[in-house]
C-alpha cells in the first residue's frame, strides 16, 4: 500500500519560524504532536460529555455517556487538527478515527458476549452437565443437579443427519456448477443464493408442514412422505432435515468457491491424458480441493449447530435421553431456549451453561475451519 502523508501539505507546520530545514515526510511515522493532539482531544471530549450528561441533562446512563464522549472527542479533534494542519488533514484524520472506531465498535460486542457468557455459564458448569439429563430434575432443583446429556446427544445426532443429507448434495451441486457447467448453471446459482436467505423459522415450518404434520393435502408427495418411518410426528430426523435445508446453500457456495481455486491446468492435463470427466473430477479436482471442502463442511455445521427456531417446530424437545432420532428429541439450543424462558434462577443458570457449551462448540469448529482454510491456501501455491 502506498500511503501519502497529508500532514504538511496545505498548511504550514507549527514550527515555521526557521526556514530552509525541510522536514522529511515519513509516512506512518507517529510524532509526539499527533499523539498529544489525539490524547488531548479525548480528554477534552470526555470533559465535555461529562458536562452534558451529568450536569446539564442528567440521567444519560453509561452508554449515552460513552457515545457522547466519542462525538465530543471527534469534534474537539477536528477543531484542533483543523487549526494546526488545515481542513483536508482534519477531514482525513477524523475519518480515520471514525473508520477505526467502527471496527472497534464491531469487535467490542464480540468480546463482551464471550466474557458475559463465560462469566454466567461457569457458575453451573460441572461434570454432571455432560453426564446427566433433566429426567429427574424439577424446576425447583438446584442448578448443579441435572444436565444436558440428552440435549448434547440430540444435537450431535441431528447435526450428523444434516451433514449426511446436505454435504454430498452440496458438493455434487458445486461440481455441477463448476465442473459440469450445464445449462442450469446461472439459474441454479441464483436459487442457491436465494436459498441461503431463507429464514430459519421458514425452514422449520416447511419441514413441519411436509413431514411432521403431513396432512396429506398434496396428493402424491403426501403419500410418499407417509411411507417414511418418521412421518407424522416430531422427531430428531425432521430436525436434521430442517437443518440440512439451512446447511445446503452454505456448503454449496463454499465448496464451489473451493473448486474454483483448483487450477484449470490440472483438469486439462487429466483430460489430455485420456481420463474421462468423472475420473478427472473424482481423482484430480476433488482431492486437490479436499481441505477446502472440509472447511465448507465445518462452516455449514457451525451455522447449523446454533439454530434454534427450526428445532422448535421439528424436534419439539424432551427431558430424558432419547438416542433414537425417530422420536422426539432435545437439542442443545432447544435446551437453552426452554431453560432461559423459565422463571427459576437455577434453570436460567443451566441455560447459561448450555450457551457456554454451545459457543465453545462453535469456537472449536470455527478454529478448525480457519486451520484447514489456512492450509488450503498453502496447498494452492
Amino acid at each position: 500500500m502506498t500511503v501519502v502523508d497529508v500532514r504538511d501539505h496545505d498548511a504550514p507546520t507549527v514550527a515555521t519560524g526557521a526556514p530552509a530545514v525541510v522536514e522529511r515526510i515519513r509516512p506512518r511515522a507517529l510524532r509526539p504532536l499527533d499523539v498529544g493532539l489525539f490524547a488531548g482531544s479525548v480528554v477534552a471530549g470526555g470533559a465535555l460529555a461529562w458536562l452534558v450528561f451529568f450536569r446539564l441533562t442528567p440521567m444519560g446512563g453509561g452508554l449515552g455517556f460513552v457515545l457522547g464522549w466519542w462525538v465530543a472527542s471527534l469534534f474537539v479533534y477536528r477543531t484542533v487538527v483543523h487549526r494546526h494542519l488545515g481542513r483536508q488533514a482534519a477531514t482525513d484524520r477524523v475519518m480515520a478515527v471514525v473508520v477505526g472506531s467502527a471496527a472497534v465498535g464491531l469487535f467490542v460486542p464480540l468480546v463482551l458476549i464471550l466474557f458475559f457468557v463465560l462469566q454466567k455459564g461457569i457458575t453451573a458448569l460441572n461434570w454432571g452437565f455432560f453426564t446427566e439429563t433433566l429426567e429427574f430434575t424439577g424446576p425447583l432443583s438446584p442448578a448443579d443437579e441435572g444436565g444436558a446429556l440428552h440435549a448434547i446427544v440430540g444435537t450431535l445426532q441431528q447435526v450428523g443427519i444434516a451433514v449426511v443429507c446436505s454435504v454430498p448434495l452440496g458438493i455434487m451441486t458445486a461440481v455441477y456448477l463448476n465442473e459440469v457447467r450445464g445449462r442450469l448453471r446461472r439459474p441454479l446459482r441464483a436459487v442457491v443464493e436465494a436459498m441461503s436467505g431463507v429464514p430459519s423459522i421458514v425452514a422449520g415450518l416447511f419441514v413441519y408442514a411436509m413431514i411432521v404434520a403431513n396432512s396429506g393435502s398434496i396428493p402424491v408427495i403426501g403419500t410418499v412422505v407417509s411411507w417414511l418411518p418418521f412421518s407424522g410426528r416430531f422427531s430428531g430426523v425432521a430436525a436434521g432435515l430442517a437443518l440440512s435445508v439451512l446447511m445446503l446453500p452454505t456448503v454449496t457456495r463454499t465448496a464451489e468457491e473451493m473448486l474454483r481455486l483448483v487450477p484449470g491446468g490440472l483438469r486439462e492435463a487429466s483430460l489430455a491424458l485420456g481420463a474421462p470427466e468423472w475420473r478427472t473430477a473424482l481423482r484430480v479436482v476433488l482431492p486437490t480441493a479436499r481441505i477446502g471442502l472440509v472447511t465448507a463442511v465445518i462452516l455449514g455445521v457451525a451455522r447449523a449447530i446454533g439454530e434454534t427456531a427450526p428445532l422448535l417446530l421439528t424436534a419439539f424437545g424432551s427431558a430424558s435421553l432419547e438416542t433414537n432420532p425417530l422420536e422426539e428429541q432435545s437439542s442443545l439450543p432447544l435446551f437453552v431456549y426452554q431453560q432461559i424462558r423459565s422463571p427459576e434462577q437455577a434453570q436460567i443458570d443451566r441455560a447459561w451453561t448450555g450457551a457456554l457449551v454451545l459457543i465453545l462448540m462453535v469456537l472449536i469448529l470455527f478454529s478448525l475451519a480457519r486451520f484447514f482454510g489456512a492450509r488450503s491456501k498453502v496447498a494452492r501455491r
Partner: protein
Amino acid sequence: MTVVELDPSGPSWSASSDVPRPITVRRGFGDRVFRGLAVAAGATTFVVMGLIGLFLAVESWEALQVAGAGFFTDSAWLPTDDPPVFGIAALLYWTVVIAVIALVLAVPVAIGTALFINEYSPRWLRGSLTGLVDLLAAVPSLVYGMWGFYFLQPRLIGLSSWMADHLAFVPVFEVRTDKFASSAFVAGVVVSLMVVPIVTSVVREVFSQAPQGEKEAALALGGSRWGMIRTVVVPFGRGGIVGGSMLGLGRALGETIAVALIISPVFEISPRILEQGANSIAAHIALRFGEASGVALSALVAAGLALFVVTLVVNSLSTIIVARSRSGQGIEL
C-alpha cells in the same frame, strides 16, 4: 471416455470447402452417470425451494380463505375467536421497523469496518480481522438474544430514556409509558449486531475490487487517504453497499430467536420505537407455535409464507444489485 469424431454424413475434406466439420461428443457410460448425478444434485436445490413454497402455500390455504383480504390489513391475532380475526399488518410493520433500526445502525459500522480492514489495517492483521467478522456471523442467534436481554438491555434503557427526554420532538422517540424494556429499539440494536457481519463481508469484497490504478492515481495527485476512499473506493463500491444492505435487510427480517427473547408482543401499529412492545413475524411464529392448532396453526404458516415471499424478493434484488456492481461497470482504465 470422451470421443470426438467426424460426423460420417458431413462434408468430405476438399480444398474448396471451408465449412467447419460438425463435432459430436460421445460420452462414455461413466460420464453419463456422473453428469446425471450432478444434474440431479443441482435439481434437488430447485425442488427443495419449490417444495418450500408449495407446502407453505397449501398449508396456509385454510387460514387465507378464512381471513380473506383481512389477512393483510388486520393487526389483531385472534384466530381462535368466533369469528376468527387475524392479519399480519402489525406483525409485518414491526418486523420492518426492527429490521430498519438494525440496518440504520449496522450499515455505517459495516462500511467503516470494511474500510478499516481493506484500507487502514496493516496487512498482517487483515486475515484475523476477516476471521473475527466471520466468527461474529457464527455466534448463534440464541446467544445474541440472551446477551441482549441480560447484558445490553439494562444498559440501553438509560439511553432510551435520555432520548425520550431530550429528543421527543421527533415522533419516533416519543413515549407514553415509562417502560423502556423489550422495545423495538432494543431488539433492533441486537439484530444489528447479527446483520453487521453479512453486510461487512459483501461490502468488503466489493471495495477490494476497486481498481488499484485509480487508487494510486488519487494518492499521486496529492489526495489524502480519506480523499482516495471518497473519490475512488466508495463510488466504485456503491452497488455493493446497496446490495449488501439489502442482503442484511433480508437477514434482519427473518431473525427469530433473538427477537423472540427480547420483545414483549403487541398487535397494534405505533411509531414509538422506544417504549415497551414490539413484534415480528418470525418471533410470533416461534412464540405461538406450541399452542396453535387448526386454523391458528394454518394462520402461522400463512405468516411464514408472507415472510418467505418478502425475504425472497429482498434477497433476489440484493443479489442482482451486487452481481451488477461486480461485473466491472464503471471501470475506465
